[in-house]
């Protein structure tokens, strides 16, 4: 029988997801055994027009990583949706906007100014900016239109499965690929549409081995400020750990090595806004004799948006800053 | 230190000595008084009971000028001015209709007032801004042994009582204690009315009130009554002969503006303080305190 068709695309993201796929090591051979790669720019040389040429639904599985940052991303999202049977939002950026989503605090213009003029390391006296259209002797060149608002894949097209993580953990990728392969072979059923895959139930704290007790903190600390107790829950030590508001599945790798959870696996089921929820959790455990003091301490946390929405701003209730 | 200064009408007539001694005293304290440009009567007349809104406008004009002169507070020396201007602020703040109406009126003369100029009684400034320590430091002639009856009058702290107790004001008590005087702190007539403008319309009533006050001062063995309002001072001092005539008494109690006595303690010369203008001689007072 002919192999199944596999595609992977890299939209607004760092590329970590692409590498993560290779993290599955020898399992990549199984992938090769079961799939023909029909589109995977980072690995194999295909052009967009090749994809445009495919019949709708030609691709069996497409792992789409990265957020929708510009018109090209959106175009490819729509195209791959059309051409794929199973479209997976792969990684934190595709599922919830990810780190690039933080630009939703500003606008595309502000970003350009920062990058091309305001940045201290930039020498750009003429204030040259990239143009979307540019005439050259050979004709007109154009660049994709940079959006003000980073969107998740799900905010643009209909997504079959969501697989969070920055990047998704290798063992989870392997597991998901197994399920999909089995399903395609008719040996197993696919998970319900819209499911979050490659994750574990409960929150990150469930996988975190640290000893947890009642939490009352008198202030916030960063791990470079002190030597955290290796056994004790980081939150109890005043370190802002997103664990309680983050879906399990990564195996609590960060907290295991003494780093606070950043929340890259997104919110657990039943939480519609990871940042707001974590804010509530963190502020709730601030303890002091009077409400005034509590308020004072709570307000000392720098950069709440960057802390609570490090990955989830684009998928949060408010989605972006006021423009 | 520098203050915008609203003398008030009396300061140009019967209360001239109050104005003079105020300036002298503040000079001794190193405080500059800048007189309000083209100020007008505060409106503290029966006009308030005739056409209230117009009276507010009249008072607000002064505050508007203060605002134009770029100051956020104005110093007044007369209890009536103090009450009237403060009252205007309060009513404008609490009733937008009055605020609009008053500004409408001011608009007609090309002015406007945002209601933000604070009205400060000079006693308030002395005790709360300059401070008793600073004042005491500059005292060169302590009022030792002088029995002073501070007379606040009815409008000093009432109805607002913004900087002192409504019922029992004590700021002047503390001021003169700081200057070494033997202050009659339980002088319970300190906020009784002197008769005010009644002296012109119902003299008998006003004289009765003055008689009560002077009797109290005598029973408390006061060497001197100090007042913080031109009208109080005039009634209590200027009308002593008539009180005596009416009630067969023999009062001859020195009554001074508190600024005169304070000025004295701060080393000003009686002439600078216009003490010769007093009807009842202040010599006993001068004699009573060591030079």
């Amino acid at each position, binding site marked *: 029988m002919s192999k199944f068709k596999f595609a992977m695309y890299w939209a607004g993201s760092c590329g970590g997801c692409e590498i993560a796929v290779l993290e599955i090591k020898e399992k990549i051979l199984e992938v090769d055994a079961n799939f023909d790669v029909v589109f995977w720019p980072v690995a194999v040389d295909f052009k967009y027009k090749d994809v445009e040429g495919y019949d709708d639904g030609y691709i069996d599985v497409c792992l789409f990583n990265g957020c929708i940052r510009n*018109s090209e991303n959106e*175009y490819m999202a729509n195209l791959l949706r059309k051409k794929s049977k199973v479209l997976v939002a792969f990684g934190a950026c595709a599922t919830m906007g990810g780190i690039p989503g933080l630009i939703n605090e500003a606008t595309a213009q502000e970003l350009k100014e920062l990058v091309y003029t305001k940045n201290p390391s930039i020498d750009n006296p003429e204030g040259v900016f990239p143009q979307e259209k540019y005439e050259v002797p050979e004709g007109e060149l154009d660049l994709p239109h940079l959006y*003000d608002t980073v969107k998740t894949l799900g905010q*643009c097209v209909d997504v079959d499965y969501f697989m969070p993580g920055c990047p998704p953990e290798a063992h989870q990728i392997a597991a998901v690929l197994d399920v999909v392969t089995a399903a395609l072979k008719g040996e197993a059923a696919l998970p319900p549409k819209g499911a979050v895959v490659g994750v574990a139930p409960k929150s990150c704290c469930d996988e975190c081995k640290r000893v947890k007790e009642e939490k009352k903190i008198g202030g916030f600390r960063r791990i470079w400020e002190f030597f955290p107790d290796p056994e004790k829950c980081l939150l109890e030590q005043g370190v802002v750990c997103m664990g309680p508001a983050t879906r399990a599945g990564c195996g609590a790798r960060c907290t295991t090595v003494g780093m606070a959870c950043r929340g890259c696996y997104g919110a657990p089921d039943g939480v519609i806004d990871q940042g707001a929820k974590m*804010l*509530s959790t963190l502020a*709730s455990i601030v303890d002091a004799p009077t409400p005034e003091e509590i308020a004072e301490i709570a307000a000392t946390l720098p950069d709440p948006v960057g802390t609570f929405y490090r990955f989830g701003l684009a998928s949060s*209730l408010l989605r972006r800053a*006021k423009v | 230190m520098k203050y915008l200064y609203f003398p008030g009408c009396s300061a140009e007539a019967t209360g001239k000595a109050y104005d003079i001694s105020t300036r002298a005293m503040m000079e001794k304290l190193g405080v500059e008084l800048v007189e309000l440009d083209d100020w007008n009567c505060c409106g503290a007349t029966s006009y308030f009971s005739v056409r209230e809104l117009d009276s507010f406008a009249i008072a607000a004009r002064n505050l508007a000028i203060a605002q134009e002169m770029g100051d956020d507070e104005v110093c007044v020396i007369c209890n009536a001015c103090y009450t009237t201007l403060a009252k205007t602020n309060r009513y404008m703040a609490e009733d937008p209709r009055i605020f609009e109406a008053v500004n409408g009126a001011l608009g007609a003369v090309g002015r406007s007032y945002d209601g933000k100029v604070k009205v400060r009684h000079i006693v308030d400034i002395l005790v709360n801004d300059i401070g008793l320590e600073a004042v005491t430091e500059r005292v060169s002639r302590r009022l030792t042994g002088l029995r002073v009856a501070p007379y606040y009058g009815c409008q000093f702290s009432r109805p607002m009582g913004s900087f002192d107790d409504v019922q029992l004001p004590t700021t002047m008590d503390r001021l003169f204690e700081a200057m070494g005087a033997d202050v009659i702190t339980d002088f319970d007539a300190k906020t009784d009315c002197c008769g005010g403008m009644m002296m012109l319309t119902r003299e008998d009533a006003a004289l009765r009130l003055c008689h009560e006050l002077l009797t109290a001062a005598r029973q408390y063995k006061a060497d001197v009554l100090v007042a913080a309002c031109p009208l109080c001072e005039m009634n209590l001092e200027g009308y002593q002969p008539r009180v005596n005539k009416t009630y067969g008494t023999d009062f001859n109690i020195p009554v001074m503006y508190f600024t005169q006595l304070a000025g004295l303690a701060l080393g000003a010369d009686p002439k600078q303080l216009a003490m010769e203008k007093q009807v009842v001689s202040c010599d006993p007072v001068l004699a009573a305190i060591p030079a």
Partner: protein
Amino acid sequence: MTAASEKESRVSDQFEPRLIGFLCRWCSYNGADLAGTSRMKYPPNLVPIKTNCSGRVDPTHIMKALAEGADGVLIAGCHPGDCHYINGNYRTAGRFPLMHKLLEQLGLEPGRVRLEWVSAAEGDKFARVVTEFTEEIRALGPLGWRTQTDVDPAKPGTAASDRVEEAVPA
């Protein structure tokens, strides 16, 4: 009648803010009831939502309200010390400033989300707070979160500022 509610009754063409108010059941909700039984007048812009304690109010609720088109959100609970649940409002006191800071980062005017302690006996205070709040938000103008992201945050969509025809790269 307050000047504000008077205006509210006169002027009709002006911007009418849509406000949500989370009231704790024991103090503030009863305070609002008292304002009613005392027939105090205040603008009609705020719709109360009852929770047992202000400590039940989750920042998610505030975000939700703003995202759903509210121009301002009020949280009202018992005065510190009066909490029917001993210290539930202490949690509110902690969450509020942090949320405030976050919302400011997202460009929201601080005045749009407000915390007040209103006891069951403070009907007058409730009326005053709602009046002030309404006028402040009226002055700030519409928040219009919907129109700026042009999405029901639950459903996919495109930000208004981003509407472009599908660009096909060369």
